[in-house]
Every structure is written in C-alpha cells, then in structure tokens.
C-alpha cells in the first residue's frame, strides 16, 4: 500500500496561501493573547488553591458556591470537571484568597464547608468519622483507639489495624469506586466483622471525596513562570545551535522561525479556547519544539542532498521536488504520532487533556510548517540575497557527505 506515489505538487507556488493561513492563525492567537482571554494559566503558574472533589451524586454547583462564599472565601470558582457523569467538581480560589502564612487554610475551609453542607446525612453524623475522606493513617489511629478486636496497646494491634485500614483504603480507592463508598456496609467482606461493626457505629460516608488539592503561593508561581519561559527559549536556542552545526545558519534560522510559529499558534490555541496552560503543557510545547524540528530536518536533508546532485535546477523547483519526495514519510510519521496523541486525547483522562490538546494542535501545525514555512524561507532568503546582488547559490553542506 502506498499513499503518495510520485506526487508533483507546486508547494512554493502556493506560498502566499500558506502565508495567509499562518498569519490568520498567528494574529488570531496574538489578538486573543493580548485583548481577549490573554493566556489562561494553571494554578501552578498563577498561584491559588484548586481542590478537586468527587461526589457520589450529581453535585449542585450553586449550593457549593454559596456555601463556600458564606464560609468567608471570596469569589470561589466552582466548575464541573470532565464528563458530567463523573460528578467531579473543581473549587478554585484566587491567589488573593491563598495566604502564604497559612497556605492550606482555603482547603481546610472548603473541606469543612462541604462536610457541613453536603454530607448525605447531617446532624446525626456529628463527631463521627467520615470514611470517604479519612486518610489511611487517620483510620488506623481511629481503629487503634476503638480497638474493636480487643487487642490492647501492642505492636501487634497497631499492625493489625493498619492492615485493616489498608483493606478499607484499597477497596475505597480502587479505580472502580474512585474514593467513594456507597455505604459503610459496602465494606462487608473486605474487613474483619468486629471492625465493620465498629465502623458502622462510629463512622459514616459523606458522599464526597477530596481527590486532590493543589495550593500554590505567589512566589512559586512566579518562579515557575520564569522557568517555563526560560526553558522554551533555551530549547529553541538549542535547536538553532544544533541545526547550525548540522547545516548552515540559514537552515537553523528557518527551522527555528518555523518552530516559533508552531509554538505561537499552539499557545494561541490555548488562549482562543480559554484552556489553562499548565506545567505539562509547557512540557508538551517543548516536546513539540523538538518534534516539529524532525520533519523540517528531513526536508532540509533532502534539499541538501538534491543540491549536491543537481546544482543547475532552480532552487524553487528543487525545494518543491524535495518536499514531494519526502511527503510520504512526513505525512506517515506525523500521522502515526498523531494517532497515538489522539488516543491520549480521547482516552488519557481529564488531567492530561490540556497536554494532549497541545500535542494534537502542535503536531498538525508542526508538520504543516516544515512544508509551508521552513522550506519557502530558504527560497525567500536566496531571492533576497539575489536582490542584493550577492551569489544566489544556497550554501550546501559543509561536508561533502554526512
């Protein structure tokens, strides 16, 4: 099977369309970055508090909002997380509501507010243990104090109750239950009957479970922002140097411009869709910088190879021919990577969504740019040199054979 057999597309003839396409997306992204959504930043960069809570039943977002508000936290942002059927909610507090002096205060208030307002059963559970939110250590200590198996204060008792606590946790936190028990009785069979009786008397299930909490002070947020920008710039610089060393400076410049174009459009897509940029998104963008360089290198390699073989052919034709010769592999490799990234986007879960979104956009744009931006830049450079009356020939390889 073959997809592209002997194609003869005049890529350079379409350069104005490409330029227009790139400009539209770049400018749309830039406009959104400066005037519309700006760059939505994840809590890691922005600072603040994000608590992710899973509920047993469909949560009432307004109720949570007003309860958290009443507890003294200003302007909490309550949003559904992932598919509605998951019953997951993000409670987000701004940096202003996250003091560095007592970093986890916001989280504590959110948890106690939920316990007060959102427990399945209210007053009769006062003072009881919430099995949906207790930690392993907390449960083990609780059991040790209650001592339902009458083991006394011994090391053996400690070990026994830790093991029982582990049994509860591994049942509750399995992928199947996601941290929420249907009832205390659901543990029947998983724990010792005496322990179960003690739990039924002294514990309850609240119907919500705090899955994760991320609290970032202002200082760390700023540090990470700086690092992310530096990392992106360093990796672009690294690519420039590598290509300079492998080819000639102009090849490096063309590839880095194409890469910058990819980065800009990808970041612009985050702004346009109002998706938060997180640390993993930066990781995705840096990976794209490396990856989109690959296609460019393949095309450049072929251009250089062809330059050595036929020095008389006009550069535009030669570049066209090089692109067409490598088109099959460019489309195939990008397409296959795209397949895996797509499966990540579809099945990889909500946490990785922004990451896979960056890769999905970036791989498409990266492939496009190596054909539509990087290669035409070489021709444009030659034309520019010719216009200034210098030698028209594009520098070929430094070495005859690599």
């Amino acid at each position, binding site marked *: *099977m073959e997809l592209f057999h002997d194609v003869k597309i005049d890529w350079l003839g379409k350069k104005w369309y490409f330029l227009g396409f790139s400009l539209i997306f770049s400018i749309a992204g830039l406009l959104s970055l400066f005037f519309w959504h700006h760059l939505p930043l994840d809590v890691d960069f922005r600072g603040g508090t994000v608590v992710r809570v*899973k509920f047993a039943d469909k949560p009432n977002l307004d109720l949570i909002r007003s309860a958290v508000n009443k507890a003294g936290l200003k302007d909490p942002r309550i949003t559904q997380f992932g598919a509605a059927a998951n019953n997951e909610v993000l409670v987000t507090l701004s940096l202003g509501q996250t003091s*560095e*002096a007592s*970093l*986890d205060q916001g989280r504590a208030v959110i948890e106690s507010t939920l316990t007060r307002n959102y427990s399945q059963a209210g007053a009769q559970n006062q003072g009881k243990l919430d099995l949906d939110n207790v*930690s*392993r250590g907390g449960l083990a200590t609780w059991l040790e104090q209650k001592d339902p198996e009458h083991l006394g204060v011994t090391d053996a008792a400690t070990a026994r109750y830790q093991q029982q606590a582990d049994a509860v946790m591994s049942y*509750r*936190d399995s*992928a199947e*239950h*996601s*941290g929420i028990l249907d009832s205390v009785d659901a543990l029947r069979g998983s724990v010792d009957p005496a322990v179960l009786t003690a739990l039924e008397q002294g514990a309850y299930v609240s119907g919500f*479970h705090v*899955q*994760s*909490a*991320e609290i970032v*002070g202002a*200082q*760390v947020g700023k540090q990470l922002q700086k*690092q992310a920008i530096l*990392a992106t710039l*360093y*990796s672009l610089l690294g690519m420039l140097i*590598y290509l300079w060393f492998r080819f000639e400076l102009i090849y490096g410049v063309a590839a880095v411009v194409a890469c910058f174009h990819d980065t800009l459009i990808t970041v612009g897509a985050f702004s346009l869709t109002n998706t938060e940029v997180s*640390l*993993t998104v*930066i*990781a995705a963008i*840096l*990976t794209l910088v*490396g*990856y989109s360089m*690959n296609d460019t*290198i*393949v095309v450049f*390699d072929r251009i250089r190879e062809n330059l050595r073989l036929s020095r008389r052919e006009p550069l535009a034709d030669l570049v066209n021919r090089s692109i067409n010769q490598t088109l099959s*592999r460019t489309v*195939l*490799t990008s397409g*296959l*990577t*795209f*397949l*895996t*990234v*797509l*499966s*990540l986007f*579809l*099945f*990889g*879960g909500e*946490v*990785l969504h922004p*990451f896979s979104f960056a*890769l999905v956009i970036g791989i498409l744009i990266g492939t496009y740019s190596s054909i539509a931006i990087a290669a035409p830049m070489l021709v444009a450079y030659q034309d520019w040199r010719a216009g200034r009356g210098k030698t028209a020939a594009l520098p070929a390889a430094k070495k005859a054979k*690599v």
Partner: protein
Amino acid sequence: MQKNLKAKTVAIIAVLIIFVFGIFGIPKGVSGSALKQALAQHINLGLDLKGGTHLVLQVMVDEAVGAATDSDVGAIQSDLQQNGISGVTVAKPDPNKPDVIQLTNVPADRATDISSVLNSRYSSRYDITPGVNNTWTLTMKNQTELDLKQSALDKAIEVINQRINGLGVSESVVEPYQLGSYQILVELPGIDDPGRVKDVIQSTARLETHEVMAGPWPDQQTAMQAIGGMVPPDAELVQSIAGASNEGSTAEWYELKKVPVWGGTDIRDAQPGHDQNTNEPQVTFYLTNAAGQKFAQFTSANIGKQMAIVLDNRVREVAVIKGEIHDTGDISGGGITEQYAKDLSMLLRTGALPASIRYLQESTVGPSLGADSIHQGVVASIAGMAAVMIFMLIYYRGAGINADLALILNLVILLGFMGFVGARLTLPGIAGVILTIGMGVDSNVLIFERIREELRSGKSPSAAVDQGFKHALTTIIDTHVTTVVSAAILFLFGTGPVQGFAVTLTFGLLANFFTSVFVSRVIFDASLSRKLHGEPISI
C-alpha cells in the same frame, strides 16, 4: 553472515530477557495477579499516580544570619568588657539588615583599643568600618553570609529528613528545590492528609533557657510601660503559656535577656516520660558537655534569680534557681499529651531548625485519583499502540510485522530500564510512553520509505535494505537528538511529574534507536537470508 546473524539474534534475546527481568523481576507465579504484583514492585510510581503530598518550603535563611550576628553582639560585648572598655552600646540598628552590627557611644580615647579588639577577632567574618561620632559598623562579609545561608539550608534538610523518618513516612524525599533559592522540596508518598507532618516539619523546636530580667506582666502594654516604653537592645519581651510560673497562672509577659544561656543546638538527647508525682506526660532533655558546664556556671552564680525555659519563642516554664543544675531538665505542665511529648522529644533530639520555614506550595493527590489515572493511561497506551501496529501491518505488510516486533521490544526495554534505575513513572510519564510509541515507529517509517524508494530505483532487495538503513540513519540521529535535547531541557527545568515525562521520553527514544536501527535490521537480514537472491521482500 549467517553466524553473525545468529550472534545478533542471541544478543537481542538476551536484551529482551534482561529487560523483562527489569520489569517483573522473578514473579512468584505466572497468574495475572502475581504478575501485577511483581510489576508494582519493580516500577516506581510518582506521587501523582501513587498518591501523596508534595511540599515546597522556603527556609528563612536571613534568620540564621540574624542569629549569628546576635551571638556576635554578645561576644563583642564580653570582649569589650574583658578589655576594660565600658559604656559602648553594641546593637543591630536595622531589623531589615540582619548582617549589620553597630557600636555606638564609643569613648574617643579607646578607639585604638576597640579597633584592635574588633580587627583581631572579627575581621575574618566582617568588614569593619569606623564612622562619624565614634561609631563602628561591622557588616558581615558576603562569603560568610552565603556560607551561613547554605549551611542553614543543609542543616534544615538534615533536620527535616530526620523528623520525617521519625514519623515513619517511608520513601520520602527531602532535597534542595533547584527552581528557587534556599527552598526545599519534600515528597511524602502515601500521605494524603499532611497536617500533622507539616506541623512537625515546621516547628522550629527551638528550646532555650534565658535569664529573667523582669516580669511578669499581664499583657504587652503593661510590660512596655513597666520597662519604660522601650525594650533594651540586649533584652526581649516574651509571652508565656498559661501555667508557666505556677499552677493556674495565665499567659503573661516577661522581659528576658536576649542571649540565651544555652540554645537549640546544645541538646544532646530528649526522651518522653512521666512526672514522678503527677504521672502527667513530660519531656526530659539532656545538654551537651559544653552547654552543661555553661549552665552549671550560670545557675551556681545566679542562685535565687529566675530563669525561663523558652520553646519556640513562648515561655514554657519560669523557675527560681535553687542550686547548681548540670545538664538536664524537664518540660512539663501546660497540658502536654502523650502524642505531644513523643513528637516534642523527637523534635528536640533531631535538633532545632536553623531558621523558621514557610510553606510555598502544597499539592496532595489521593490514591483514588492515581488509580483512575493509571487506568486511563493504560487504556490510552493500548489504544494508541493498537492503532499504530494495525496501521503498520496494513501499510507495510511483512515489514509491518518487523516494525511491530521492534515496537514491542522498544516498550519492554523502556519499562525494564525504568525498573532497573528506579526512575519514577508519573502521569505525564505515561504520556511519554505513548509518545514514544508514536515517535518510535517514525524511525521504522523513515527506513521503510527509503527502502521502498531504493527498490523503485531498481535495486535488489538486499541492496535496497542496506541503502535504506544507511540513508535513514542520519535522519534518525537528527530526530533523536532534537527530541532528546528538548527532553533534557525539560528535565533540568521541570518538577517531579514533568521530569517523569522527560525521563520516559528520553529512555524510550534511546531504546528506539537500538530497536529500529539494530533489531529491525537483524529481522530484515534474517528474512532475507531465507530467501533466494533477488526474491522480493514484503514491504
């Protein structure tokens, strides 16, 4: 050729076995659950998959500088006294400049004496400059200050490490956090309720004994009035806990001598125990030899006076010195619980933090989320891998099998390597694995496309394979180098989960270089060797 091929095949199988061992070790059985357990033992999961807490804390290193200059203030005072110079005020003029000491009210006729005292004993650590009106300013040397701060950070890491171990948190990580200055990263796997650990980490547990100069007063205002509206430079006002002076007393204020008789670093041991009379929990501490001698001198010289035991800037106990005390004391009363006595004695044993700390970042992932993430990651990996493998089979037929075998070996080496070096698999790390599948197969595509081109130009199958591998090699090196450069930068600048991504991507691509260039070639050669010369290959 044939013999060479055999050797290469043996090498590949050996690699396969070694890395499968890296993933599973020697499992207890071949059942699904036994394999799963073996896998869980060999592949380390990151905090985002296992559940746990990640903390970033700032060490307030300026305090360590302040403590050093504080003790030098005391030292200068006693040096001047020994040289018979009196009336000089030694103090730190600006609270925002912990590194500056100033001498004022210097008698004009003793300027040379003071200069020689200061220069002989303090010039190695301070820049000493005389000022107008007979003042002297000592500014700590830059290098001295940096050394102090660094040693405060090192000490803090050591202390926090001991404390966390004391709490029995296994596999914890305490290390300098490179993204900030004088910050520490603490990782606590399996802890999703970090409250108590955080309290224990943060408590400075600075236990000191001070001479009581005056007091007590019921509140700060009264205290200020009583001492004339200004705290003398060598003293400080400290609040006590309730019941510090006697049973039933309320929280009061005392004026204490600023420089302690002994301090946090002078404790040799501390043990929880019970008061012999009341059977209430208490903590008994023991001083080092040097501090014990100092304490004995002080107590024998100050019989009848009051001294205060101060813990974390709160007076815990005020007692009248009745006789010489050597090297031991108790902390009791004030509603100490068994748990507190246990924690406090552990804290005192591990020593005081050299400076207080502040939490900058805290992220907690519950184990349920990790289980979900692993499940989704595995589904996405299998879906992506299946899509790629099926495509390769359809598009390249025979050679597709080759690529698929190479791909499987690629993953085995990647995971086995992670198992061997104990690298942590994080959620972005799983994404790195998936991306490795996509990028790894790129190398095969490069080679196969080139072979097809060579075949089209009329070369024989074996020549085409040979040329295909040769020509594609440069490109494969390029693509690997560019991606690994990106990953390396990520590793340097990233934090835990992102570093996990960089690690899997790098390992994956390195393994890919071996599988796509070497293993694929061997499979081609093996299939070519079974064919007649010139018989077409399936690609």
